[in-house]
Every structure is written in C-alpha cells, then in structure tokens.
C-alpha cells in the first residue's frame, strides 16, 4: 500500500535508535524547581503566590486574565524561594518562580466529574484550562482555545499527531507505547468537547510497534478511531502537512486548521488531557527525550516541569567531552542552549546533545540550484525570501508570502551553500509583521 504523505519535504537521518526502545524512566523529583510564568504562546501569567508561601504539587501559582494564556502550577510540594527573572530555554530572561521542595508530593487535584462521559463540554473545557494544558508538541499553544473554535467554523475531524518527525525525539513514541490507554481516552475527551465523530491518529511508519499497539487497543475498546500510517518525511508532524496527508485538505494561506474543519493535537497533549479529566492531575510532568551522540547514556525521562537541564543530563551520565551543541527540541527546529541551568518547560520534548563539528556557520553564495524550493513544504521560494529579508525589501517579501513560512528548517537543511535561510526568513517575518501591524 502506498503510504500517505504531503508534497515536498525532506528526509533527514532519523537517529531514533538512541532511545526508541528504552522504557521511560521516572526522574527523581528535584529539590528545587524553577517554573517560568510564560510557557505558552500568549500573555505571560502573573504570580499569585509570594515569597515564603507553602505550595502543594499541582497548585496554581501563576495565571493571567488574558484569553490567550494558560495557568502554571507548582510541580513539587514546597516553599516559594524567589520570584525573579532567570534564563529561559528560549534564550532570554523571563520571570520565574523558584520553589524549594520540602517533602513528598502532597497533591492538590482538580475537581473532576466521576464519569467524564456524562460531563458537559463546558465543564471539560474548564478542566483543560485549569490544568494548564498547552500543545506539548513544541509550539505550546493553549489547548483550551483550540477546543473552543468559533461557532461559524464547523469542525468535522480530529487528528491526533503521533508523527514525531524531528530526528532523535522519541517522547511521543514511548508515550504511545506505554500510555496507550491515556492516549485513547484523552483523544476521546477532546473529540467529545469538539463534538466530532471522525478521529484519526497519524503515525509515521518508522514506529510500527506503536501503530500495531494502538490498533490492537482500539479493536479491544469501543472507540472508533482510524490509525493512519504515514510516510517518514520531515515535517510530517507540522499541522498543515499532517492535514494534507491524512485528509487531503489544504489549509488556506494564512489560515488555521479550523478553517478546513480540523483540529490537530499532539499525543502528549492527549495524555495530559486524560490525566487532568480522569485523575484531576494538572500538567506538572512530561516525557523528555535526552538523546544524541553527545550524551553518555541517552534516555527517556518522565520529568517534572521546572527541573534543570543539568539534572536530566546528569541522570543520563553527563555530557561527553567532545559535545559541541545542546538543543532544546530536535535538531531541525530546536533552540541551542548556552547554559544548562535552564528549566524544562511544557514545550520541552527533548534535549539533544550533538558532537557535530560542522557548526562554524560559514556560508557560501547562492548558486541558484533551487534545492530549497523543491524542499519547502509550504511551496515558498526560500532563497528569494531570504534575499528580500537581507536587503530589507519588506513589501516584496510580504507579497512573496514570507508570513506563511512555518520555520521548519527544510530549506536550510538542504542548502548546499549552507546559507542560514531560516534565520533570514525569521528576521524578515519579524519585520514584515511589524510593518503589517503598523499599517493597520
């Protein structure tokens, strides 16, 4: 059978073998956690606790009145040490709450209905909001907003994203194998909230064990989901690509998945929803893949949010001497780190340590080969966009569709001249965005 996929895209080496067969280990609860008040797209939270306060595991410590936002919770039981700005893995300093652990977990759980199947959608939505659930695939968009599409958008399908197309990362893969029930329950809850009947699970074909396990569980349960094996290709896990592959629908330029009647959520998000709605547990932990040739013993770790990267890497035997780069996230879209004291945030799907020596940044002139054009899954002209951005031709860049770039990095990956295309396009996007906003 021909596997489904989208057009264009690239085939980076997978490197999943480091951790794909390793059972997730639970990382011991750290003595100190540092919880950023912004771990999502939208308005940052304001702290609602003060220095010296006692907090329980799962207690809300920061929230915002803004609609596009998501509360943050304490991930240990302890005492607030400081509220100050610390380094965030995104590279800048942001407000964080440092909590000193004082003892074992004393959970503050959410009020949940005994049987979620009988609960109202509003009730479920508010649980998802209170649990601080955001998209755990990496973008960290607040889930409760995705679950509340405007009236005029009729949602008919839901896709669970189990692609995990970034090299190295295996946290979703392990989650599908080890927490299959939660994945399916979470998916059912999301579908109930959205009121959709058709549910698809898109999984890349390099995870045959996950595909068979989920298919088997679905057959045993009353759920009526369709598992769709997909071709191994990057960026298969990007929302728009996944919709194109599974449903053959094209999200219009500048549009959202809801414009074509689809909502996409990550496997990790489904688990978080299931934990919140069934057990009343807010989002305080996630699976983080620590992988790469730069770390002694790669592992999948169930980690409390706010644990420092250093603790995770120590758990994996530390960095090798020749390690050159540490990324948060995969090597394609991840952010390189310069200080390992940064905390794990909700969007940290992995920590990838490389010994790659080729990161000296030398780039050569464009030879007009067009490789980037044939790689771009959004059908853009990366070389042209990068040049417009370089020469500050913002009007032209806007007309050529720079704002549609999803920053997947395919163009820069294939460029034989090693031109930092995505970086130029990001600069251009920032400036074009400013220009468009100032015009309105």
């Amino acid at each position, binding site marked *: 059978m021909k596997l489904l996929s989208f057009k264009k895209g690239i085939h980076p080496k997978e490197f999943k073998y480091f951790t794909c067969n390793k059972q997730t280990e639970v990382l011991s609860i750290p003595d100190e956690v540092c919880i950023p008040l912004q771990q999502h797209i939208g308005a940052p939270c304001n702290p609602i606790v003060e220095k010296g306060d006692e907090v329980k595991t799962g207690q809300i410590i920061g929230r915002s009145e803004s609609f596009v936002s998501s509360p943050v919770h304490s991930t240990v039981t302890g005492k607030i040490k400081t509220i*100050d700005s610390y380094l965030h893995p*995104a*590279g*800048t*300093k942001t407000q964080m709450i440092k909590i000193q652990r004082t003892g074992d977990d004393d959970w503050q759980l959410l009020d949940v209905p005994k049987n979620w199947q009988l609960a109202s959608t509003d009730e479920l939505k508010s649980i998802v909001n209170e649990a601080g659930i955001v998209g755990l695939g990496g973008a960290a968009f607040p889930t409760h907003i995705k679950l509340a599409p405007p009236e005029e958008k009729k949602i008919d399908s839901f896709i669970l994203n189990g692609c995990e197309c970034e090299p190295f990362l295996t946290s979703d893969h392990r989650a599908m194998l080890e927490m299959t029930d939660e994945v399916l329950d979470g998916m059912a809850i999301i579908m109930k909230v959205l009121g959709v009947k058709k549910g698809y699970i898109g999984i890349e074909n390099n995870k045959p064990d996950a595909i068979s396990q989920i298919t088997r569980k679905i057959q045993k349960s009353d759920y009526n989901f369709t598992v769709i094996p997909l071709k191994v290709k990057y960026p298969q896990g990007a929302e728009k690509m996944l919709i194109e592959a599974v449903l053959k629908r094209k999200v219009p330029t500048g549009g959202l998945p809801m414009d074509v009647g689809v909502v996409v959520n990550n496997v990790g998000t489904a688990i978080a929803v299931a934990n919140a709605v069934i057990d009343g547990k807010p989002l305080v932990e996630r699976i983080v893949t620590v992988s790469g040739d730069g770390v002694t013993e790669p592992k999948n770790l169930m980690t409390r949010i706010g644990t420092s990267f250093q603790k995770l890497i120590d758990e994996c035997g530390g960095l090798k001497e020749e390690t050159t780069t540490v990324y948060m996230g995969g090597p394609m879209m991840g*952010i*390189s780190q*310069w*200080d390992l004291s940064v905390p794990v945030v909700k969007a940290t799907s992995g920590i990838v340590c490389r010994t790659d020596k080729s*990161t*000296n*940044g030398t780039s050569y002139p464009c030879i007009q080969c067009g490789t980037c054009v044939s790689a771009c899954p959004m059908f853009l002209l990366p070389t042209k966009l990068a040049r417009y951005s370089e020469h500050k031709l913002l009007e032209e860049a806007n007309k050529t569709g720079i704002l549609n770039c999803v920053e997947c990095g395919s163009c820069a990956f294939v460029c034989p001249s090693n031109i*930092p295309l995505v*970086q*130029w396009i*990001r*600069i251009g996007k*920032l*400036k074009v965005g400013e220009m468009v906003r100032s015009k309105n």
Partner: protein
Amino acid sequence: MDINAILISMVSMGGLGILFSAGLSIANKKLYVEEDSRIVQIADELPGANCGGCGLPGCNSFAENVVNAKIGIDGCPVSTEDAVAEIATIMGIEAVAGEKKIARIICRGGNDETAKKADYHGIQTCTAAKLMGGGEKLCNYGCLGFGECVDACPFDAIFMTENGLPEVIKDKCTGCGKCAEACPREIIEIHPISNKLFVLCKNHDAPKIARTVCTKACIGCQICVRAVDEGAMFMDNHLAKINYDVFGKHPELPTEKCSTKGLVIIEHESQPTEQISI
C-alpha cells in the same frame, strides 16, 4: 564607395532628426507642466540624501510638502540652520531656530567590558543575534556589536570601534534617527546637542546581576538621584534616568561618585582614528 549613398543617409538621418526635434519642442510647449520653482530651489538646499528622517519618501517630496504648507520648514532634521534660514527666505517666512540633534550611544559595554556567554555563528547582524537568544554578550539590554546602525546611517557618521561599540562622528551626524530605528536594542537615542549629561547604560537588571554582566553597567545605587534636585533624575527599575525637562541644560556633573562612572558629560566626540570595515 558611392558618394550618393553617404549623402542620402546624411540627409535622411538629418531630416529625421529635425522632424523629431520639432515634434519634441512642440510637445514641450503644449504639454508643459507648471511647477513651482520654489520646489527646485528648496530641494537644492536640502541634504539630498533621501534619508527619510522627515517621514517623507525623499528630499524632493519634502520640498513639495513645504511649498504646499503641509510640513514646517524645519521639518527636516538633517538640515543645518543655514539651510533652514535659506528655505525660509525662499518661502518668504521667518526661520525658527531649531536645535541641532545628534545620535547618542547609550551603552558602554564593548567587548572588553561585557561578559561573553557563548559563541554566535549565525548571521552577523544585530537583529539576527537578538532573535537567537540575545547575541554573544551576557547583557540583555546593551549593544550587540554587529553594527546594524553603521549600515543604516546614510551619512557615514557611525563607525565601530575596535572594542565593538559604535561611535558617532559629531560633525557628520545629522540626527536623522535612522540608526536609532535600526537598533533592535534601542540603545541609540536622538538628543538635542545641548543635552550633555547622560547615564550611559540601559541595563535594568538587579545590581547583583548587573555587576556580573558588564563592568560599566548602572547598578542602581541611586547616588546620582540623591545628589540632584528632586525630579531631575529618577529610578526606572534599577536604572537611573535623567529628566531633561527638569534638569535643564545643566552642564555640570551632579556627582563624581558614580560607582561605574556611567554618569558622564559628553563634551567632544572623537574623530575616527581607525575605521573598521564591517
């Protein structure tokens, strides 16, 4: 060669030339567009760099707007006082003396002063470095040192020193504000030339952190704020700022005690000793 061929071609080409020139001269008369002669005169007085400092597309457009009384004669931040006076004479109005403005670099954190956090290999511009976790230097507020302001300056009035900080050449700077617009960290400010007193730092970090990121950071000790009249200086989140309206054009340093010597009077601008190409 047959002499006739040469003659015929000369006559025919010459004839064509006369015919077209006649056509053009008629068209010139018939289709002549009446243009205010003052526009050309004013445009001659303007710097002609088309820098856009006035908010219009270029110098000619500025001249048109002056003639149509849509913008004041002192609307060009670049023009010298003499030029403004000249424009005033052309327009037949009295010139209002405007003060010359100049760009000031509000940061002294060069490569020697700031701590470095990592090697940056990406695109060598300030905006790119800022997007990639804030560049090489540890300070989150100071100069990134890639010289985007130098590229933005239409008058070649900024150069990078060896220490990796931009420096403004006083005589060349016209105060058009292009550099301030280009700087992603907003450390360049346009000030009237009579503002001589500055706190040359933009760091809002707490004192303990500010000390570690840069040897010349304002550590918020407030000595200067206490030394001046109330309201003349104020603290804004660990950073001393000057209120020029209250302070007036005071040329004296209110206190010698600034612990990082960041509160200074700028008297002379140095000339480029050695220009570094970017």
